[in-house]
């Protein structure tokens, strides 16, 4: 008996967001119609332009709102929720890594020569394991881009009692994953909230001028397989080539960031 394999991902019920391809190659074969629709969504230049214009308009509104809100001086560590907008300055932060070393984003970007990749991190999350243990997505990225002037930081915004919390667990993860870059601890979740980090992983790329150049998923496969397109690599290639980032924002996927309740 020949057994034909069919894949009916639940995801098939609903199209995943424009940025995310169907989970596997089989799914692509079985659902050509849906794939086409997705491509349209991603590639539709009219829609892209439209969205960009819309973003610009939104930005203006936000600037106005910001001017107003500056009066009610809030905690400096708690900027407005989801303040990391593409094209705008990346929220500043100072955090300590698993070895007790302090990292100040401003110091890293100050010379105007470094690109920064931030990866929201939780060593116990199955999606982090997918990219750090089962595959070496981030280590490979680091190997390729660090020497080109790209600095990498993992940030763990998990609160006490949550999965992957704590200096010890993260120090262990750094060893286990042979992670070549620091894991910064953001127990209060302030930095996570400032960036609007939703998932682990959730990637933010900061251009040499200190503005957010990319935010979203690491790649285009939200299943346990590695995607065909690595959005971070694509954005880094474009930034290093001095061209604009063609996909500056995608829908992130992964475990929810385990913020304090």
């Amino acid at each position, binding site marked *: 008996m020949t057994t*034909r*394999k069919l*894949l009916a991902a*639940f995801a098939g019920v609903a199209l995943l967001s424009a940025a995310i391809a169907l989970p596997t190659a089989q799914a692509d074969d079985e659902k050509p119609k849906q794939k086409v629709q997705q491509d349209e969504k991603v590639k539709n230049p009219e829609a892209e332009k*439209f969205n960009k214009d819309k973003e610009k308009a939104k930005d203006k509104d936000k600037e106005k709102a910001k001017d107003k809100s500056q009066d009610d001086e809030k905690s400096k560590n708690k900027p407005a929720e989801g303040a990391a907008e593409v094209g705008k300055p990346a929220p500043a932060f100072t955090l300590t890594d698993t070895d007790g070393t302090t990292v100040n984003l401003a110091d890293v970007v100050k010379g105007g020569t470094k690109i920064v990749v931030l990866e929201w991190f939780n060593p116990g999350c*199955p999606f982090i394991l997918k990219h750090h243990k089962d595959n070496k997505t981030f280590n490979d990225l680091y190997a390729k881009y660090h020497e080109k002037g790209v600095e990498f930081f993992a940030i763990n915004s998990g609160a006490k009692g949550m999965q992957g919390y704590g200096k010890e667990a993260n120090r262990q993860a750094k060893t286990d994953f042979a992670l070549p870059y620091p894991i910064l601890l953001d127990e209060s979740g302030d930095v996570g909230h400032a960036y609007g980090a939703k998932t682990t992983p959730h990637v933010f790329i900061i251009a040499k001028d200190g503005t957010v150049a990319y935010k979203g998923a690491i790649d285009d496969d939200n299943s346990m397989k590695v995607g065909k397109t690595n959005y971070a690599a694509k954005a880094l290639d474009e930034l290093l080539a001095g061209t604009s980032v063609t996909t500056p924002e995608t829908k992130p996927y992964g475990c929810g*960031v385990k913020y304090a309740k």
Partner: protein
Amino acid sequence: MNHALFIPVLVGVAVAACGAPPAPNAATPAEPPAQSEPDGERMSQKLLSSVTAAAPGSSFTLALSCRVAKGWHTYWPGLNDTGAPASFEFSLPAGWTVGEPQWPAPVRHVSPGDLVDYVIEDDFTVLVEVQVPKDAVVGTAHEVSVAAGWLVCKNVCVMESRTSTTTIRVEKSTVARAEHAELIDAARKKLPETMVPAGLELKVQGREFSATWQGASSMEFCPLDSAVPYENLLKDGASDSATLRVKLGDFPNSARVEGVVVGVFGADRKAVRRAVRVSLPVPGDEAEKR
């Protein structure tokens, strides 16, 4: 009550129900409480079939009956901020086909960080229709299996998987499997209604989708992904009245609001949730200008 003791017992029940051995408690004194869950399945899953034998050219229903351990949730295949819906990989004989999995309605789940997800927290069943080809040979028996993988979370997320197999014979006439068919019928009643019932009014006007359900004490909108962007699901996705208003973003082409509207009737323990699948066209900007 001592929850630390209570949860492992419940998980044990769920695991025993699907035939796996009870797992040891993986508690380590140095770890915070979140790490001390027992190892093993947080969600068990059983494969049911509406028939033992199917006639050539007929169709039957496979059901994935899932039990979620108390306090945990898994993801509905909608527009979630986090997590991922389970995946099913079916192995079927040549020529047999399987439809889209049909899910019961989820509940809205907002976690710190304004993460909006649509999850399932209780036992649930996902149904799929299998079509047997007309040229299936009478008298043969076939293995049908499904490899399922799912994410189950509370303050910890765990990926689990299971492959289940059942055998279906091809006979001249279909033979129902009574004990499973009953469960499958019950599961079918829990799927979102496909017809918009009397008393529920759905409307798309300008850049707003609204739903009013007479007698509902609260409403939820569980969106499926579509070309329509939603302005603020955190704010608009649930309402404490019989009316729900969801602001839509702009999109240049025509698109549809796709999802499930849930109405809650009655209060507290007597509350009844009713769910309806909705699909409404939204005229694009271009169309509007004309």
